[in-house]
């Protein structure tokens, strides 16, 4: 264990460094906007640096075990400790959160949404970062809960203050929804705590002893956790906050929301709910699977019904997280690997899609699919990036999306023994159909927005049907807003694009990491 | 023994007092009804003290009397205050704040 405890400061530093940045920014006057941005960016970069250092220190041969474990007293009265550690499941998500924050900071450099005030905006983002990172490293339920909740307020304000027209409704909805879930989740945590003899809130301990609880008690406790996490994921009946939140949130908010926040829920399932309550998991798995496939189809239908680009992408998240949850619901290590991979992939791809949507909005001042057309002519690079992400998102082999989607479907063919095979095979077929629908709405989106001639309102002059190669240039003359990808955007996006390709071509980069950790968890459920 | 009669008397007084508090609209009358209740309490204490032959009841009664006096003082002061401002002590009119 000592090996795993070496350098156990890195996690704490990586988690709380952003708060230091917040403190610094507190004392910088509001007017110094550039300085604010600089400090924020530097903080984020430093945090990422620590993250990379963690990567270098991480012992990949023992990815199945908790590493950099640190444990000190925190709330001794209620037997809760400051207990952190990281393993193959947490690591990718932990790093992902850091990367996303950095990219979002870069993007914010010239994209501070109205009503401005970068100071508050960036500070919130840093707090958010701490919350996200902390959630992934907590090894203590109470600590987990605190970090889990910590992300709420900043996101609430991000949506509510810097969001779109309907922001206040959306933000409140987002908040109440999540809070509802986490309140019941907390009750469930406590019940678990007492049912295991009120010894400790440490996750490993509870994983050890949770299985001993009587089955029907487990089912009830699981119900509480289920609601808490399912709201966050979001799973089918609890998803309605998502489209509103995403649509109204500023680009940066949507990106973080899609890339990391949604993962908190699925992560909770894998790390907490399922290993701690194996019997209940067995009971619930078919229903989780059912909700997942419903979500897959339902989300796809939702997408097809959308007229707003951003809202469409938001709904697609419902569908994609459906695949993730389907993988989890099989309770096999194969399925869970797929799920974790899916989380990362979805984080990269959908995050990227939201970036693009934001830039489109900034250029065209609308996301009405009907009004957009011929982007390939006016902003070729942007449109091609959109096309690329669309392809990735619909699960094209060779890009990251596929490795989350296909194995998940595959895994549904043979769920963990004890689960009804026929049920899950039906799920598999439905999910496979889901991939087609995904192709449908994504390509439909791409075809309508990127292909064709630019509409007249954005200077797509139909007069010169014979067209010239300098077409787009002479458009820019009329529409100064409509310009192609800027340098900031390139810098912010390239890493994501690279990641999508990299993990698509070499999925083992992740699977090697995830597999042992998942295996460790699956042994808990006797899989 | 006599205790029960005292208790019954106290109970009756208590009920009268409660009725007064609820039914009366005049602040002073309400105040007096409350005094009634307090006195019923005193009777209770004394009766029990008598039965149990312990001194605590007497002491308590004395305290209640003293405190009641203070309360009445404060109460009348407040009623006076209201009267000054509104030229009326009808409690129903004191419903500016509600909901």
């Amino acid at each position, binding site marked *: 264990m000592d090996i795993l405890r070496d350098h156990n400061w890195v996690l704490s530093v990586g988690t709380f460094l952003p708060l230091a940045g917040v403190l610094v920014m507190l004392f910088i006057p509001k007017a110094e906007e550039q300085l604010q941005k600089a400090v924020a960016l530097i903080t984020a970069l430093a945090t990422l640096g620590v993250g990379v250092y963690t990567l270098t220190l991480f012992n990949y041969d023992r990815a199945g075990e908790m590493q950099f474990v640190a444990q000190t007293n925190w709330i001794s009265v*209620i037997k809760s400790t400051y207990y952190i550690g990281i393993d193959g499941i947490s690591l990718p998500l932990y790093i992902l959160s850091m990367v996303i924050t950095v990219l979002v900071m870069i993007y914010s450099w010239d994209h501070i949404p109205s009503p401005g005030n970068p100071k508050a905006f960036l500070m919130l983002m840093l707090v958010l970062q701490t919350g996200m990172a902390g959630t992934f490293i907590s090894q203590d339920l109470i600590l987990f809960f605190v970090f889990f909740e910590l992300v709420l307020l900043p996101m609430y304000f991000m949506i509510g203050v810097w969001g779109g027209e309907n922001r206040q409704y959306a933000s*409140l909805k987002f908040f109440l929804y999540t809070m509802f879930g986490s309140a019941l989740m907390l009750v469930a945590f406590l019940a678990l705590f007492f049912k295991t003899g009120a010894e400790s809130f440490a996750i490993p301990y509870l994983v050890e002893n949770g299985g001993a609880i009587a089955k029907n008690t487990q089912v009830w406790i699981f119900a509480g956790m289920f609601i808490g996490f399912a709201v966050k994921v979001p799973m089918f009946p609890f998803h309605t906050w998502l489209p509103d939140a995403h649509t109204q949130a500023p680009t940066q908010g949507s990106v973080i929301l899609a890339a990391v926040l949604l993962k908190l829920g699925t992560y909770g399932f894998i790390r907490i709910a399922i290993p701690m309550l194996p019997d209940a998991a067995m009971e619930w798995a078919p229903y989780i699977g059912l909700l997942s496939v419903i979500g897959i189809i339902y989300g796809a239908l939702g997408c097809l019904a959308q007229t707003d680009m951003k809202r469409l992408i938001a709904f697609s998240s419902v569908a994609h997280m459906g695949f993730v949850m389907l993988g989890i619901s099989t309770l096999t290590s194969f399925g869970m690997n797929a799920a974790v991979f899916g989380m990362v992939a979805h984080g990269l791809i959908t995050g990227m899609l939201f970036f693009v949507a934001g830039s489109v909005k900034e250029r065209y001042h609308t996301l009405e699919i009907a009004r957009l057309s011929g982007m390939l002519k006016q902003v070729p690079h942007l449109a091609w990036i959109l096309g690329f992400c669309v392809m990735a998102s619909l699960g094209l082999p060779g890009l990251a999306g596929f490795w989350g989607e296909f194995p998940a479907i595959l895994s549904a063919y043979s769920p963990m023994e004890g689960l009804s095979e026929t049920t899950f095979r039906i799920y598999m077929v439905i999910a496979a159909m889901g991939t087609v629908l995904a192709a449908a709405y994504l390509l439909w989106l791409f075809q309508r927005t990127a292909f064709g001639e630019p509409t007249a309102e954005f200077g797509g002059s139909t007069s010169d049907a014979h067209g010239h190669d300098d077409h787009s240039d002479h458009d820019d003359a009329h529409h100064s807003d409509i310009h192609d990808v800027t340098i900031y955007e390139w810098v912010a996006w390239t890493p994501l694009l690279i990641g999508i390709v990299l993990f698509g071509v070499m999925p083992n980069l992740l699977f090697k990491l995830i597999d042992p950790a998942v295996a460790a968890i699956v042994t808990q459920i006797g899989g | 023994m006599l205790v029960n009669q005292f208790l019954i008397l106290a109970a009756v007084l208590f009920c009268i007092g409660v009725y007064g508090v609820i039914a009366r609209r005049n602040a002073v009358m309400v105040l007096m009804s409350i005094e009634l209740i307090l006195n019923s309490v005193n009777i209770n204490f004394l009766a029990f003290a008598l*039965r149990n032959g312990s001194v605590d009841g007497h002491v308590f009664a004395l305290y209640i009397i003293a405190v009641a006096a203070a309360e009445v003082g404060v109460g009348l002061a407040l009623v006076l205050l*209201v009267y000054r401002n509104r030229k009326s002590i009808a409690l129903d009119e004191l*419903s500016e704040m509600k909901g």
Partner: protein
Amino acid sequence: MLSTLFAAADWAAPTIDYHAIAPEIIVAAGICVVLLADLFIADRSKWLLSTVAGFTLLGAFIPVLTLALSDGGPRSLFDGRYAIDDFSLVLKGLFLLSAYVIVLLSTTHIEEGDYYQGEYWVLMLSSILGMMMMTSSRDLISIFVALEFLSIPAYMLAAWRKRDAKSNEAGVKYFLLGVFASAVMLYGMSLLYGVANSTLLSDLASEISGDLTAIRVLAVVFVVVGFAFKVSAVPFHTWAPDTYEGAPTPVTAFLSVASKAAGFVALVTVLYVAVPGAADVWQPLIWVLAALTMTVGNVMALRQTNIVRMLAYSSIAQGGFILMPLAVAAEGNSSAAVLRSVVTYLIVYAATNLGMFGIILAVSRKTRSGELASFGGLFSYAPGLGALATIFLASLAGIPPLAGWIGKFSAFQAVLEAGTTWGYVLAVIGAVNSVIAFGYYGNVMREMWMRPVPNGDTSAIATPAPLKLALGITGLATLALGILPGVALHFGDIAVFSSAFGG
């Protein structure tokens, strides 16, 4: 002749542990000083009085500390009728500190108002004294006296603004209902005395148990009702919103924090020390009260437009959360956890709520309005206040990592520790309510962050030094207790009765 009489009663002067009651003595002295000084000090230097009051409270805090550190163990005076145990010390400390904050909040407000200042401080201090006595009372008589001692000055404080009709109304309502409630409570006490033939709580404990005759039940119910009124538990809460709205804001802060806390102290004392045997009576009663209080308080708060009134309902709802664990206090071994959670909750609630009232005072200095809309765009022109207000509201809503969450958490923990079905149900009700609550807390945040400034007046807010200090203290406490919840929980943990079941 007297001496013979004394001899006959072989009366011995009780030995008084002056160290033990030093805090009370200091405060009493302070009262006299302020009272006298008020007569001789010229109007322009009346501010001295608040300073004196403040220092009195701080001074009284010193012996509390020394008592806490002295390893004499629990002390008791007047053969057990007045106990100085950890419970009382912790709460005395709490009362003194929150009173000090309230003094800070009041100072400017009172100075600027055109009413007598001396009385204000006298009344405030005496009410505090009553509360301190309450923490130590272990006898029906002393409890009663303490209760009246803290209540009567409060009635007058509520009606402080003499020429303001609202203030009068607040005072009268508070007074009449308060007295009525305490009368009912007294009736219950008389019955208790009748049954147990003693006013000493520990004696009651032995008597009130086993078979519960109607009279015992009635007695317990009436006593609980008396305190339920104090803690403004639904349906005995009706006075609270009106009084809070009408009373001067600092007084409201005082009522909603200190006097409510005193009510809980009394309630807990009686339940734990006097009638633990009657748990079958008061547990269901409190279960219902808690559920009602949380729910009604929240839903009523949702539709308020006056921020003070909204906070009144919010504090009612918070009271429901404090009550929640008491509904299972006697189940299994949960009593310790329940007591801990109550005290913890009182501590964090005091810090947070006082802070929020400080914000209201500061803002209303500019806007001269208690309407919710007056907070519009606060963050845009007073980011400091806005951020602080957000912290306080979030803490009230129980969002980590701010103090409020540990209060809610320990409440849930205690209620679940009992492991009874009713406990779980209550916990779920509480969980749902904690969500509803954010409805109106979030509403205020929305005003501050997302709504325009009313009539575009973005002139800065001048916050006087005492208010700044108060805000600083409470804000710091809110953050610290949230990030290191161990502190609050620790005090909650050590605050146990010297003589009680589970204690």
